[in-house]
């Protein structure tokens, strides 16, 4: 019986080629559109996720008071002695690396007078900046920190926006004027050895080794945050759960990056946006399929009536119409993938430029770059293909139910 229904579906599809082609085209268009859109979205937000988790730490440890008011960067709410904590963390399963970090606002000057150039000074290990921040690859001039830690202490890597505003050049001395955790004015100076890409948040940052900011903040051996890294940022929640029970961390706030603001809201938002885009495309294409399939069923009312009179059950009528639509959707879906893979691959390799200005404006908190690349994967292609099948199923539901409801006698009398 099933074989018969499938043969009938295929015959019906071939009998009305133009309509079948139209239906397949709609599916192809929908699948191609979804592939390109989701490829780009996945690229943007996937990269943001990786960069955000890298900067924020897969798991972040800080005092409760710091976590509550971290937007104000309260230096006095710090972890006084991080060395024993880093040792304890290093022994934990699942922990690949852990680093101390201090961030504070500074005024930068290369001249005699303190001006109005403000930046964010970030003190951490150069290894952290390079491995998890990916910042060495963002150098546009000069070189990275020296391997010799003593030498590195005198070095500064500066964001391009700050370099431009202070008019400082490579090799020149720069003074960072900040405050100790007690509120006293506190300066450090160093030589600018490297300049970072100006777009995004890094353009307004100045990077120094942790020891320098510990001195500036009068926080010897301390830090405001401990950043802990797992094998992959996707394991952050798991790592958070395992670190919470560590006695050395009692009284401190342990949080996975995806559970911290603003990442927690951004992740939910991006998932929702992707879902909405997919839902809209599926709905619109389904409407078109509904139209063509309904026409097909109405034209064959007499034929279906005869088949019903000959013993075809309502479920069989539904199966027949659905199978026809599914077959068209498979062809349309494959065509859609072929159509969409070209632009998606181009997005992945060449990216789309948002422009430095837009990246700077958007990059206040979330790391975003001037050029955004797509992320094409076999998983995404399969997902879009399956959505194509969903479009067909959704669009064909009402026509199939109509076919199932055809009264045989009335249908045969109608002669259609």
């Amino acid at each position, binding site marked *: 019986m099933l074989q018969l229904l499938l043969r009938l579906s295929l015959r019906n599809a071939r009998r009305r080629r133009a309509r079948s082609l139209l239906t397949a085209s709609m599916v192809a268009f929908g699948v191609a559109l979804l592939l390109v859109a989701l490829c780009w979205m996945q690229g943007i937000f996937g990269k943001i996720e990786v960069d955000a988790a890298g900067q924020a730490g897969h798991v972040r440890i800080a005092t409760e008071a710091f976590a509550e008011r971290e937007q104000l960067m309260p230096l*006095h709410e710090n972890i006084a002695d991080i060395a024993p904590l880093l040792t304890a963390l290093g022994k934990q399963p699942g922990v690949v690396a852990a680093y101390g970090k201090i961030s504070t606002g500074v*005024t930068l*000057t290369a001249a*005699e*007078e*303190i001006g*109005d150039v403000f930046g964010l000074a970030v003190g951490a290990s150069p290894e952290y900046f390079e491995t998890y921040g990916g910042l060495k690859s963002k150098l546009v001039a000069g070189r990275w920190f020296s391997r010799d830690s003593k030498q590195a202490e005198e070095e500064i890597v500066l964001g391009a926006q700050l370099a431009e505003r202070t008019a400082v050049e490579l090799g020149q001395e720069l*003074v960072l*004027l900040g*405050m*100790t*955790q*007690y*509120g*006293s*004015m*506190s*300066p*450090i*100076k160093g030589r600018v050895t490297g300049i970072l890409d100006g777009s995004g948040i890094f353009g307004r940052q100045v990077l120094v080794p942790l020891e320098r900011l510990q001195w500036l903040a*009068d926080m010897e051996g301390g830090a405001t945050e401990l950043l802990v890294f797992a094998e992959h940022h996707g394991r952050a929640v798991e790592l958070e759960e395992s670190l919470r029970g560590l006695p050395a961390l009692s009284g401190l706030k342990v949080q996975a990056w995806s559970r911290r603001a603003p990442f927690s809201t951004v992740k939910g938002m991006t998932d929702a946006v992707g879902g909405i885009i997919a839902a809209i495309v599926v709905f619109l294409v389904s409407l078109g399929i509904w139209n063509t399939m309904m026409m097909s069923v109405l034209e064959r009312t007499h034929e279906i009536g005869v088949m019903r009179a000959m013993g075809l059950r309502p479920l069989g009528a539904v199966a027949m119409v659905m199978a026809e639509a599914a077959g068209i959707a498979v062809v349309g879906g494959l065509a859609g993938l072929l159509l969409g893979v070209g632009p998606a691959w181009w997005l992945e390799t060449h990216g789309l430029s948002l422009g430095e200005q837009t990246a700077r404006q958007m990059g206040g908190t979330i790391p975003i770059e001037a050029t955004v690349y797509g992320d094409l994967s076999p998983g995404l292609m399969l997902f879009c293909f399956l959505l194509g099948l969903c479009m067909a199923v959704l669009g064909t539901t009402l026509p199939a139910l109509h076919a199932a409801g055809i009264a045989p006698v009335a249908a045969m009398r109608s002669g259609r």
Partner: protein
Amino acid sequence: MQRPTPTSTLSAIAAALALTTALVMQAAAEPPSARELLKRMDANLTFETRKARVKMTVEGKGRTRVYEMVSFGRGQDDAAVEYLEPRRDKGTKMLKLGDELWIYLPAIERVQKISGHMLRQGMMGSDVSYEDMMASRELEKDYRASVTGSGSHEGRDCWLLELKATKKSVSYQRRKTWVDKETLIPVKQELYALSGKLLKTWTMSRVKLFGERRFPTHMVIRDHTKKGSSTTIEMTELVFGIRLEDEVFARRWLERRH
């Protein structure tokens, strides 16, 4: 003519005495003019030269920090401060000349001029801002004053003085001052913003006599924009009218090491 009797003479004298006493008492009860009060306050608080050893205790953010410094003053416009303790801040110097303020930071062996937004920050994280340090001590120049009555502060009888700024550039647009009736020292001041918000409370006590001058040696400043914050300033080894080297009030003094 009848000669006055001893009794009538005595009565006349008593009446005259009573009248004089009443007049004097009435005069004493009348508040001095605001201008007069300000003048006499300024006479106590302003000086030609002054040197002092100062201990500043800053409490806030759950911590207490103690700074020791030596402070020089010349007239209304010039002041110099060198920090002696704690060790991290030793050698930090500040120099005010007129409207300009410089700081020498030994960590970077550099002199920086402080201007703009930096002026509003507290000195060494204290409740006394650089702007407070820059402000003219002669209140008469920047305020219009009126005596609004009497009050008391910590058991001391005071005149209540209300001051309103005559320029928008003045940090505290309104001041409410308790002026000790005896010492003519502003034992308490409330400093307000243009919006009417209370910004700081400044109290002065332990007034000592230096020749004809009375000067407070203990001050407490509370910045109400910071939670739980206060700064206590104690002056010891306070001397006025001494000869100070001109070099102290020159920029080269900032980079001079002892």
